[in-house]
């Protein structure tokens, strides 16, 4: 039984694509067959973060418009088996996507035996974002601990509850999960950032995990490897926890409080 998971946020630049890359890689590492689709037509980024930008021959729009087959367009990840990427087109815009076309791609992926189909949503609440979430069974709401991001997430949650296929057909609602990115407990303590509790209180969505703010995330993006693969990084561990919790494991939340650094770490640690 395949599940369609949308990674969305409303606001741009909060870490949707980073989360999509690490989340799909994490699921594939667990042995599931995963496809990750970049819905951000015109501003493709996912292939960069996944490090496959030089291997894109056909893209999502080509498949939607029938110019290429799904098999031709799916890019197999070189590091993790069972992980496939469907890149966005850089030259087209979001009008190139149609509801029927997207539905066909998702149905074909399900038939091809993918366990998880991850839809990396573009920012905003317009057509691209609505198409990305329309067929979702579950949603990862990516939010920064900051008021405008939280408000935009609230807005997209409303759209999830009103404009998804499940909502329109009156089926069981989309399962919502909160992923708090760029979380910095130090700045929460000084009052510069909203705390986990504040965000959960505002959004009333259960927390799947908080990803600590980390240089490793940017480094990993630049290197074209999902941060989850960098096992020493706190962000990677947090993403691994997110995957575990998503799969139903009980994992205690980490990285939510200020870490007390010992003298040794102060001198030599990051």
């Amino acid at each position, binding site marked *: 039984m395949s599940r369609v998971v949308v990674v969305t946020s409303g606001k741009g630049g909060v870490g949707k694509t980073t989360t999509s890359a690490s989340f799909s890689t994490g699921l594939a590492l667990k042995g599931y067959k995963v496809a990750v689709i970049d819905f951000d037509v015109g501003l493709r980024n996912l292939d960069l973060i996944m490090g496959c930008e030089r291997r894109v021959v056909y893209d999502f729009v080509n498949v939607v418009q029938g110019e290429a087959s799904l098999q031709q367009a799916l890019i197999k990840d070189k590091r993790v088996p069972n992980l496939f990427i469907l890149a966005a087109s850089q030259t087209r815009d979001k009008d190139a996507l149609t509801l029927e076309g997207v539905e066909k791609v998702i149905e074909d992926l399900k038939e091809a035996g993918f366990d998880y189909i991850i839809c990396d949503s573009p920012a905003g609440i317009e057509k691209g974002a609505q198409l990305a979430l329309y067929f979702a069974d579950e949603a990862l709401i990516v939010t920064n601990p900051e008021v405008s991001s939280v408000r935009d997430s609230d807005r997209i949650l*409303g759209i999830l509850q009103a404009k998804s296929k499940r909502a329109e057909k009156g089926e069981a609602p989309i399962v919502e999960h909160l992923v708090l990115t760029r979380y910095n407990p130090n700045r929460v303590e000084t009052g510069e950032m909203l705390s986990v509790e504040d965000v959960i209180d505002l959004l009333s969505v259960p927390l799947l995990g908080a990803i600590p703010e980390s240089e490793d995330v940017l480094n990993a993006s630049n290197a074209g490897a999902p941060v989850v693969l960098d096992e020493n990084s706190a962000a990677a561990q947090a993403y691994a926890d997110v995957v575990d919790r998503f799969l139903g494991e009980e994992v205690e939340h980490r990285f939510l409080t200020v870490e007390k650094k010992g003298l040794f770490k102060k001198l030599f640690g990051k």
Partner: protein
Amino acid sequence: MNKVIDLKGSILSLTVLKLFSNDIEQTKQALEQKVSQAPDFFVGIPVVLEPEVGNLDPTFLALLVELLHQKQMIPIGIRTEDESIKEQANYAGLAVFSGEAKVKKRPKPEKSDQKENCSGLKSAMVINHAVRSGQQVYAKDRDLIVMGSVNPGAEIIADGNVHVYGTVRGKVFAGSQGETSARIFAQKIDAELVCIAGLYQLSEDILPEYKQGFVEVSLLNEQLNFKPL
């Protein structure tokens, strides 16, 4: 492709001229006196006549219509149940509106809550989840109960009372059809705007002490009155 015409029902606000006398001279004097107080105001306004007396002289309506035209008002119709007056109205070229009795009924149920409760007033609309940014909920002709929070950028509107068992961070409107006895009850109010029957306060005008706990908002002397519960 473009529509040439479109026929639609619409509710307009009209001036009603109530007539308490069937003497045309008396009526004429009273009208002239009224108009002289603010001559510009009456120019071009549509007027509906409403005789509160019977036994109108057969020429009464025709004379009155003529007089109103002189005063640059536009009589368009008459509201009456009296058959003889209806007949006269036909001759005078006035539209006949049915009597006020039916129309009056509408504001009544809102005012006498208790009585109407027994006779099947619409039960409250219940929202079991949070109302999110960009969402709008309108409970027409009834109360609204929200079990979750009302988030920033959301709007909840009721013609009756509003109850929120969460925090109100968006906008909240009670008595939106003008019911001044409507109230707002909330677990916590940190609203962008609180409004009862068109009288409102913005977040910055609400004293911080009312933003702490359970609070009731009502109208008192045309002002919002916050009362911690």
